């Protein structure tokens, strides 16, 4: 009998912990929201003068692990040593972008969070709507900072209603990587600029170039967004969500999504682009191991790819492909930017701004670019010796810079409140289509329906 009671208790506890494990976090957010709501309406705060901030300590939350994290730590310690204002920056790694954003939500309870936080590009709409932030533009104006130092195409992404909301920091653009040796062997001299073009040379690469697969094209929502931009079409309505918050997607009605999916499916059906997985990195291993002739990836992957390939073959870089050769459009950016949080403390705000200025200074950006492969956000960084050495070593990076400069700010990409969810929806529908469970028309319809209802629910509950 005793044993029975013990075991009943044990199981109840275990089953209940199942529920608690799931509910616990939402609870934290819950209690945070009540007080956080008031902070949302907080009045503007002005910066203190630079001379007054001696001894101020600010907290910087970032999501850079590994090599990138080391580079951040180096920049932070340089700032702590070199800055003449007596500012101390404490940098804290808060996990991946999603995790960091979740932690930020919980931490906003009583301004226990950070002073400066790195948020990924698709969190932009959320941050603007949150009411927790001080737009960068305010500090730029107060300090008389010359914004033309920042790459215009990067700044454009974070500029809404002529205000720069956050400072671009680690920006990347997508590139097409190709195996030059295979191209030479197959006798292909002209690098394709579109999916259509890749399809046309598929057999050549397989039969003559010795490729195991033509293209390791990972299912990644960011690529889908780029393919839309390359067609010059909008992702969402209301001017891609930039004039006003988007209320629905636009890619179903403007036909952009169907073009992409049809081209993708066709590449897949012919065996040129088998399913290699979801997410940004899924296609890289096939490329680096010499199996696929082409892959798509972020500029930030360049260094990793070159290291993995390790001279086995020559890596070429080209502009991100369009869907059809006739398409006219451009690429937008990915990565993350820096957001100043409103903690009602003029000194901290000034300290934050000084630190931001340091991070985007040509010197820091040249170092950052060389260490990580992210785009130098400051134009003048290209004059730095560190940058010149780096580009001499990795001439492929020049493609990324040319591509960004060739692209017009009008293809800057969409803003959407539910972007991370939308991206995941796009990925799973593409996957479903490639697995033969639905046609491209059905996939597009499902994407639009799911994302639109998410937007609707979001606007219903977040008035």
């Amino acid at each position: 009998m005793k044993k029975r009671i013990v075991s009943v208790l044990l199981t109840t506890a275990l089953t209940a912990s199942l529920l608690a494990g799931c509910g616990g976090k939402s609870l934290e957010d819950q209690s945070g929201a009540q007080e956080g709501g008031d902070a949302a309406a907080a009045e503007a705060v002005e910066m203190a003068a630079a001379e007054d901030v001696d001894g101020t300590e600010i907290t910087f939350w970032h999501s850079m692990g590994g090599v990138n994290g080391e580079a951040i730590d180096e920049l932070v310690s340089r700032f702590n040593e070199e800055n003449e204002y007596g500012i101390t920056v404490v940098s804290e790694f808060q996990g991946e972008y999603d995790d960091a954003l979740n932690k930020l939500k919980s931490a906003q309870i009583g301004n226990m969070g950070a002073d400066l936080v790195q948020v990924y590009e698709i969190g932009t709409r959320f941050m603007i709507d949150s009411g927790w932030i001080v737009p960068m533009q305010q500090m730029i104006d107060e300090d008389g900072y010359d914004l033309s130092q920042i790459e215009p195409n990067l700044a454009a992404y974070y500029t809404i209603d002529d205000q720069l909301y956050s400072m671009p920091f680690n920006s990347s653009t997508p590139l097409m990587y190709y195996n030059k040796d295979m191209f030479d062997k197959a006798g292909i001299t002209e690098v394709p600029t579109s999916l259509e073009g890749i399809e046309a040379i598929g057999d050549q690469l397989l039969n003559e170039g010795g490729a195991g697969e033509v293209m390791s094209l990972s299912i990644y929502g960011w690529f889908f967004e780029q393919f839309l931009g390359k067609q010059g079409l909008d992702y969402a309505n209301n001017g891609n969500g930039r004039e006003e918050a988007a209320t629905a997607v636009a890619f179903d009605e403007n036909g952009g999504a169907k073009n992409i999916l049809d081209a993708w499916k066709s590449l897949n059906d012919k065996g040129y682009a088998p399913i290699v997985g979801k997410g940004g990195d899924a296609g890289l291993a096939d490329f680096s191991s010499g199996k696929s002739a082409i892959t798509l990836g972020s500029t930030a992957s360049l260094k990793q790819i070159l290291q993995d390939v390790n001279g086995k073959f020559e890596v070429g870089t080209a502009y991100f492909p369009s869907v059809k050769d006739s398409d006219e459009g451009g690429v937008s950016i990915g990565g993350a930017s820096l957001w100043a949080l409103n903690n009602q403390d003029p000194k901290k705000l000034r300290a934050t701004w000084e630190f931001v200025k340091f991070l985007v200074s040509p010197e820091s950006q040249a170092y950052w670019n060389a260490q990580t492969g992210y785009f130098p956000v400051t134009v003048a960084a290209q004059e730095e010796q560190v940058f010149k050495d780096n580009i001499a070593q990795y001439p492929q990076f020049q493609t990324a810079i040319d591509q960004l400069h060739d692209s017009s700010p009008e293809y800057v990409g969409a803003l959407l409140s539910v972007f991370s969810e939308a991206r995941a929806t796009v990925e799973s529908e593409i996957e479903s289509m490639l697995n033969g469970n639905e046609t491209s028309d059905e996939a597009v319809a499902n994407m639009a329906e799911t994302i639109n209802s998410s937007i609707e629910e979001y606007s219903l509950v977040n008035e």
Partner: protein
Amino acid sequence: MNAVKKSKWNASPYFYLVPCMLVFAVFLFYPFFKTIFLSLFLTDKMGQAKVFVGMQNYMDLLTSESFRNSLKVTLIFVVIVVVGGMLLGLIAAVLCNKAFPGIRFFSTSYALPMAIASSSAAMIFEIMLHPTVGIVNKMLGLDINWLNNPDTALYCVAILTAWLNSGINFLYFSAGLGNIDETIYERASVDGAGSIQKFFSLTLPGLSPIMFYTLVVNIIQAFQSFGQIKILTEGGPDEATNVIVYSIYRDAFFNYRFGSAAAQSVILFIIVMLITLVMFRIEKKGVSY
């Protein structure tokens, strides 16, 4: 058991329960009721209950194909993990119950999975199962994209989990075997029982109490598996590994729909509760203490 007279109510024993109950209240009961409360609402991006929708979250879930798929996937997953994990543990424990040279080495290696965090194991398997550079395809001479093929992904994740769980099961079963009186085997031998007969007539019944406990714990654990799914498949491909716990995580911390996530938690709780109740029914018949 009845040292205290029933007529005289004594409060002091209940005080001893207070610390434990406090911890339970903060970490279990409050979140439990809060979860039920949240499941009746739509929540905003902060996870705050905003719009009361009653049973709508539940209705949406029960009519959604995606959630039905999650239920199906979860059940298949749990069956593979529980059966696989317990069989592995049991076989290993029976094999190691005999004394032979190197026994310590074998015991340690069978118990080892217990010490590996599910996430680290998942990361190792991710490389091993990689279609191009992974050792599994190289050794088998195959070209299967294990984790991105809807037909194989669930089995890969489930087998990994079964192996991970087998370590602790091995330990339980070893302890259980140690408790079985050696002499009954001797007597059975004298009576002419073969080793298979001995296993089914003596070992299994002797193990039944620990077996029951292991079964309950394993089932609950299997329902809660998360890390390896997040790392290996993220619920994909095409929702083939979208077990309920992962789906809850997705809804709550990715889509910020705590209402729907809470409703899923409640449904999962009910399922686990029902299974547990059914098992206690069975216990009365099958388990001999």
